[in-house]
Each structure stands twice: as structure tokens, then as C-alpha cells.
């Protein structure tokens, strides 16, 4: 099925839950979906005899702070009918939530967890929404455009000094200064660090 026909089929079934069909040049054609009705649309995409999108290829969230939205992008493919389609949903950036589709495509389970982990999208009704790549106590969502990494994580520095800077230090510094440059953050409290834990 051509993308325009797929969109027409969707409009006929779910009406205004889908909108703004766009097909430009060689780009993948896509349509927008209302986040609150995404689950219904997904069920239709998966089960309709003319659509049969059984493969959820890719779930991506893209951060657009200037437009103040987080955009979800779902790439779908149908093995029986060999056609593909892209669905996008705009979520408000201050409260980005969308319905989970983990019960429709099992692949969505871990992929949604990853987007939650890196961009902080909340998936309503997800069975196991935990961080997947980062540690559970990590603060913030690294792939958001305004993310600032904390200097320390569990008393470990999250960055290292540039080796080019270190070369200058090595030429001129005293041993104590060298030590400090190598281990920033360590030893600031003096030598009374507790070692017995």
C-alpha cells in the first residue's frame, strides 16, 4: 500500500486522531497522531487486514526545545504486505507522556525504556518502565538538548582533564599540583577522607 492510501485508511477508521500527512520528495512519508489516542491507532495499524504493521522497527524521541516539544517518531514495517509507514507525535516538553504500545509490539517494551532513559518520555501503561542503559540513580536525561552533566556521580568525577592541558601542567607544576590536576575533585576536603566503610 502507498503511504497516502495508508493515511486514508487510518482517517476512515479513527478520524481526527491522525492528521497532517506529509510526503516530501525522497523523505519517508509520515503523519501526526494525537498522543492520547496513539494506542487505538497502534492497534488499528497492527491488526487491520489492509495495514498489518507487525514490525515496530524503531522508536525515537527527538527533543525540540525551541518549539517546546518532544517529538516521538515510530517507524513501522509490515512483513506480510512489505510496506512501511512513519507516525509522529508531539508531546509537551514540560510533561512528555504518551500511551505505551508494549502490549501490541513486544519490541516496544525495551525501546520505550531506552527513550525513557535517555530523553525522559513517560510511557503510560508500560509494564516495567525503568532506566535501561544508565544506572537507576542517574540524574537527568542525557539526550535532551539542555542536559548538563553533574560534575560528580557517587563521588566519582564524570569528566577527565584534557591531556593537552595536562602537558602544560606537567611542564611547570609542583608534584602537589600535578596530583591535583590528575584527580580533580579528590582530596578537596583535606586528608581526612574516611576509608573505613
Amino acid at each position, binding site marked *: 500500500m502507498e503511504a497516502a492510501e495508508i493515511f486514508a485508511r487510518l482517517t476512515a477508521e479513527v478520524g481526527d486522531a491522525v492528521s497532517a500527512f506529509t510526503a516530501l520528495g*525522497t*523523505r519517508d512519508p509520515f503523519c501526526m497522531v494525537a498522543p492520547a489516542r496513539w494506542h487505538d491507532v497502534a492497534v488499528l495499524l497492527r491488526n487491520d487486514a489492509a495495514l498489518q504493521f507487525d*514490525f*515496530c*522497527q*524503531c522508536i525515537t524521541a527527538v527533543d525540540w526545545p525551541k518549539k517546546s516539544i518532544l517529538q516521538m517518531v515510530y517507524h513501522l514495517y509490515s512483513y506480510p504486505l512489505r510496506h512501511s509507514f512513519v507516525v509522529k507525535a508531539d508531546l509537551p516538553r514540560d510533561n512528555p507522556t504518551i500511551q505505551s504500545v508494549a502490549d501490541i509490539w513486544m519490541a516496544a517494551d*525495551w525501546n520505550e525504556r531506552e527513550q525513557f532513559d535517555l530523553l525522559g518520555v513517560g510511557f503510560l501503561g508500560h509494564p516495567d518502565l525503568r532506566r535501561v542503559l544508565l544506572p537507576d540513580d542517574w540524574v537527568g536525561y542525557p*539526550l535532551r538538548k539542555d542536559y548538563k552533566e553533574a560534575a560528580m556521580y557517587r563521588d566519582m568525577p564524570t569528566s577527565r582533564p584534557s591531556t593537552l592541558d595536562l602537558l602544560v601542567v606537567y611542564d611547570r607544576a609542583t608534584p602537589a599540583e600535578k596530583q591535583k590536576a590528575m584527580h580533580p575533585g579528590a582530596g578537596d576536603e583535606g586528608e581526612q577522607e574516611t576509608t573505613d566503610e
Partner: protein
Amino acid sequence: MSEVIFAYETSGEEMTLNMGPQHPSTHGVIRFIIKTDGEIMHTAIPDVGYLHRSIEGIAEKCTYEGFMPYTDRVDYVCAMTANHAWAAAVEKLADIKVPERGEYLRVITDELNRISSHAIGVGAMAMDIGATTPFMYILREREYVNDLLEMICGARLTYNYHRVGGVGWDMPTGWRDKCLRWLDHFEPIIDEYNRLICLNELFIKRLANLAVVTGEEAISYGMVGPNLRASGVDFDVRRDAPYSVYGKFQFDVPIGKGEMGTVGDCWDRYYVRIEEWKQSVRILRQAFDQIEKTEKDFWNHPKKLKPKGDAYARVEAARGDMGCYVVGDGTANAYRARFRTGSFNSMKVIQDKSRGLMVADLVALIASLDIVAPEIDR
């Protein structure tokens, strides 16, 4: 299912075991939290992220071309196809045409890399379940591939050969003949390898009927490539959604037939890779034949690369359909990049299919999915 040959009584006590992160059979650093009652597992929960380098974040900080060497690290066992996925996505985004010779060189390096990657896959699988020797035999063949790829791009593992708009260099003088000579040498080795391990009675007993994934499940799990085909789904991106010059070659797509047990068991996942070697050799021979007739130009170097919009490209990597999604905002850097990889989706399969397996069989399941840790974590 295999017949029950011994009675097993559960004690009702659950024990929690940590397998990994530094366990030799996890193929990189992954941890499995295993809840087990004696030998029978209740569940194995994958804990990933030990190799997370935020490659997608790095992509936003490099230029489109400058990001190419990082794509090798997405999947270091099959780096060429990761190169290819990124190049294809950016080319689709910026609407760049690749010269024909460039496409042929891409296909040739992809297929050589696929052979070497499957060599690691099947060799390590045999080793994981206790047969050390086949790994050594097949690693010898992989060394030849590494030598050939070193000749064309200078690296043995992380290649950085493909470029946006083509490839970095033409093939060196005499390289084509060396490759063809090696193909003549390699083809009989596949049969030798079959005699050595694939059709070995003990090997089959260990793998047949183990952790069966049906075709419908495999699609829903998002399994791709050899793992999907082993479950009987006849789909290959190279044939069914052709990219590059794959449309010009004759080749078959091997699928799992359940010869030794059930369709979609561990042995099928293993044997599909062996069959794919033969098809890769076929593609390579045709590509080396056809590349002779192409023009000299191999790289259409884009002068200005500041695309706007988004594009999704998929290529058939050794671990299956690798997708790359790029968003451009009209600057020299990508606004967002995303790699969709086979190993990441396989994690859920392990989580679900490990129930009721033995601990030793978990190792076979992990190996049969041909998991590579950096591809999970990126």
C-alpha cells in the same frame, strides 16, 4: 519439545545468581541476574549499559562526516555495515548519489565483513557450549578476511572505510585476485566446518529444540536478520527492500527449516549463519565480476553537507536489519541520530525465553542470538 529423560524435583528455594558482567560467554560486558531453583532458571534478567558510550549523543557533536569513525564502535564485529547504515541514512537525508563503483566496493566489504562476523558468531557459539577447537579453525579463516580488509582500508577491526557519498579509497592493485583466490579456498572450508561441528551428534543434542522462538513471536520481538530467518520468516533487507546494488545479484535467503528439531530453535539460528556464508560467497563472486565494468569514480564527495529534515535507512548487517535514523536541522552536525540494532531487541527474547531453561542452556541461547554488547549499549 525434547523428551524428558530424568525427573527433576524443585526444592522451592530460589537463589539469585549474577552471571557477568565479566563472564566469557556473554560476549562483552552484560550482566544477567538469574533467579534459579537448582539448575532450572525462573528468570534471567539482562542488565545492560556497561558499554554505554552515548554514541547517539556524540553524533550530535560531530559533523556528518566526522561521525563516521564512531559508527564502527556501534558494532565492532561487523563495523562495515554500521558504516554503511550511517552513510546510507545521511545520503538519503541530503539526497546524494553514490557512484556505482563506490556501491560495489561497499557491497564487497560488507559481505567480507559478514563472513568474518558470522565466523565469530558460530565459532564462539561452539566454544561457549564446550567445543573449543572449531573456534580456532574458523578464526584462521577470519584472519584472512581481516588481512584483506586491512589491505583495502588499513584497519583490521574498526574499519572507517565508507564515506558519505562513496568509499574512502579504491581497491589496491591485485586485491581483487587475492579475494577471489581466498573465496576459492574458503568455500570448501564451509563443508569441512560442517563435518567438524555443525552436524556433530552431541552439538545437535545440545541445541535442537532449545529456546524455540516462533515466527510470529520473532516478528513481535523485533528480532532481525539470521535470528528472524531461523524462525522461518522469509525476509532479507538485501532482497526485499534492496539498497545499494543488491538488486543486481542472484542469491538465496536461507531460512530455518527445523531439520534437527523445531523451526526457530538454537540449532536453526546457528545453521542459518553457515548457509549465509555460502550466499555471501555467491554475492562476492558476482560483485567482483561486475565491478570490472564500472567507471573509475568511487566517491562523490559532497562539498556542502547541511541537510534539513529526517531520514531512516536500513541495511542488512551481520546481526540483521540495522536502521539508522538521522534528523538534520540545516547545520553541519546531525540534530539527532539513532541506531536501531538487532542485539538490543534480542535482550527481551532472553528475558522471556530463559524461563525454565537450565543455566548451561542460557549460554547456548545467548550465543545463538549472536549478541554483541556494544551494539546493545551504543
